[in-house]
């Protein structure tokens, strides 16, 4: 896998202020990179700069070559924004727009656009006016318009932010399927951590215009680079799991060699969800037997880190697990690196996320 897009010393200045500054950023082909950050962090600005829609200073290389002809570059990529931004015409004509601008012949245009609409499940809306659609339908048209041109990079700027929860979930699932099938290199800007976790292979955390961490998705959550990143992403244990069985009251999952029971239901049809447990919810004890928690594991303390008023304990239970305890408790239990202790958490606490990417 090679870097299809690289940025070096990228700076965007707006109104005399430096709004974004990236020392280095690389996007691997056929992968999804999420740019994650709070509102106002400069995520959209960064996306616009990468997509050659904003003037920027610094080096941007596409397939190893500097981006000199912005128009030519734009015709090899596609962008989907938070609002559908459709034209007052039929859905079909909107879907064909990108192709029409590139001078593609009308027969070819028609079939490629129809194919894209079908992939987004809205082929039946082709002759409808684009202005009469619901939010979710309109956004599907916008996405269809983007994938119809077969972009080498697909940029998505918070595409689900304006949708309600069920619409969002359905669309995320469908989009993920399309991206996976066609191996589209994708840059996804979002402020939603679950979205990033679900869809992205790698996450770039952007705070106040600076890139704070660029890493595999789980690592960003398991090992935030600094306290500010930690505060934003919300430190979590993110464990790839496999659904073993689903009963009326519990879901049983396998993580590494261990079985874990949770009350959360796995996302529909997903047998390989992500199991997320907050370190604050993990209880440490020296005595394995006397707890109501359904999930108890023996684990070796790999590392002890005092952070503020807590101690962060990194354990190896056959899978990595992070727990937070008070300083007092750590002292009371006389915890030390190398000790074998019992880590447990209740079945009611973890939540399951759909894993929309290559296992």
């Amino acid at each position, binding site marked *: 896998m090679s870097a299809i897009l690289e940025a070096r010393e990228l700076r965007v200045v707006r109104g005399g202020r430096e709004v974004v500054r990236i020392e280095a950023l690389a996007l691997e082909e056929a992968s999804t990179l999420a740019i994650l950050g709070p509102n106002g962090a400069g995520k959209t600005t960064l996306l*616009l700069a990468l*997509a050659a*829609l904003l003037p920027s200073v610094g080096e941007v290389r596409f397939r190893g070559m500097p981006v000199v002809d912005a*128009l030519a570059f*734009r*015709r090899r990529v*596609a*962008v989907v*924004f938070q*609002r559908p*931004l459709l*034209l*007052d015409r*039929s859905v079909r004509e909107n879907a064909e*727009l*990108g192709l029409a*601008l*590139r001078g593609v012949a009308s027969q070819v245009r028609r079939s490629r656009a129809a194919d894209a609409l079908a992939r987004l499940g809205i082929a039946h809306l082709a*002759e*409808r*006016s684009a*202005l*009469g659609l619901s939010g979710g339908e309109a956004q599907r048209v916008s996405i269809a*318009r983007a994938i119809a*041109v077969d972009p080498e990079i697909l*940029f998505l700027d918070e595409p689900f932010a304006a949708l309600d929860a069920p619409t969002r979930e359905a669309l995320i699932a469908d989009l993920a399927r399309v991206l996976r099938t066609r191996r589209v290199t994708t840059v996804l800007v979002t402020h939603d951590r679950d979205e990033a976790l679900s869809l992205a292979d790698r996450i770039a955390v952007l705070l106040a215009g600076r890139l704070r961490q660029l890493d595999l998705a789980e690592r960003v959550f398991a090992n935030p680079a600094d306290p500010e990143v930690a505060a934003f992403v919300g430190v979590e244990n993110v464990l790839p799991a496999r659904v073993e069985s689903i009963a009326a009251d519990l879901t049983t999952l396998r993580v590494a060699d261990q079985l874990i029971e949770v009350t959360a239901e796995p996302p529909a049809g997903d047998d390989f969800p992500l199991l997320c447990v907050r370190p604050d919810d993990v209880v440490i004890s020296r005595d394995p037997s006397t707890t109501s928690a359904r999930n108890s594991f023996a684990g070796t303390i790999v590392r002890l880190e005092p952070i503020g008023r807590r101690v962060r304990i990194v354990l190896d239970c056959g899978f990595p697990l992070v727990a937070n305890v008070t300083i007092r408790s750590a002292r009371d239990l006389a915890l030390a690196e190398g000790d074998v202790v019992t880590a447990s958490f209740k079945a009611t606490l973890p939540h399951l996320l759909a894993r929309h990417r290559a296992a």
Partner: protein
Amino acid sequence: MELIVQGIVEAARRIVTLDRDVLDAASASLAVSGTATALSIAIGIPLGALLGLGRFPGRNAVLSVVNTGMGLPPVAVGLFVAVLVWRSGPLGGLDWYCTRPAIVMAQLILAGPTVIGLTAVALQSVDPMLRTQLTSLGATGVQSAWLLVRESRLLLISAALAGFGAVISEIGASLMVGCNVKGDTRILTTAIALETSKGEFGTAFALAFILLALVFAVSAVTTWAQQRPRPL
């Protein structure tokens, strides 16, 4: 009152018998005002798009000039164009004095700024994110402008209608540069003035009715085009 009734009767008679003078004046009006409007659309919409979408130094000054142009007094424009097209003037070689092209020129100066100004405003009001989206889809500046013009078509239809309305009813400039030549530059408005000053009120009424009918017909068609129900 008797005069009005006489006039209406005379009007009906001339219309029904397809009176030559009336037909000539009507077709002359349509020809010159239609041409002037068509030209002001052909030139005005691209210029208006440039003005509405572009960012360049002096843009505000140009906008002010265009806005001033929307309120030009027709008779002053007529005098200005007359001075241009007289043999003694810079465009004298064209020999346009007392001809239709001279009227078209004057009417173009009257209708043009209206079309330019309203187009500029319409395009300026377009969602800036839509412009970014079009650019991101690989549109060149021209492609973008054309797409946005099409998106604003309702407003632009109004602009065109405003331009047409300004010139079809115009008399001052048309008289001054067209000279009211029978069968050629005697358009509805100048013919009405002449017939009135001759005391031929019946003919004047007939012409006035036709002018009203023409304006109404054009408005009706345009309104229909603007307001027809869109497919759901």
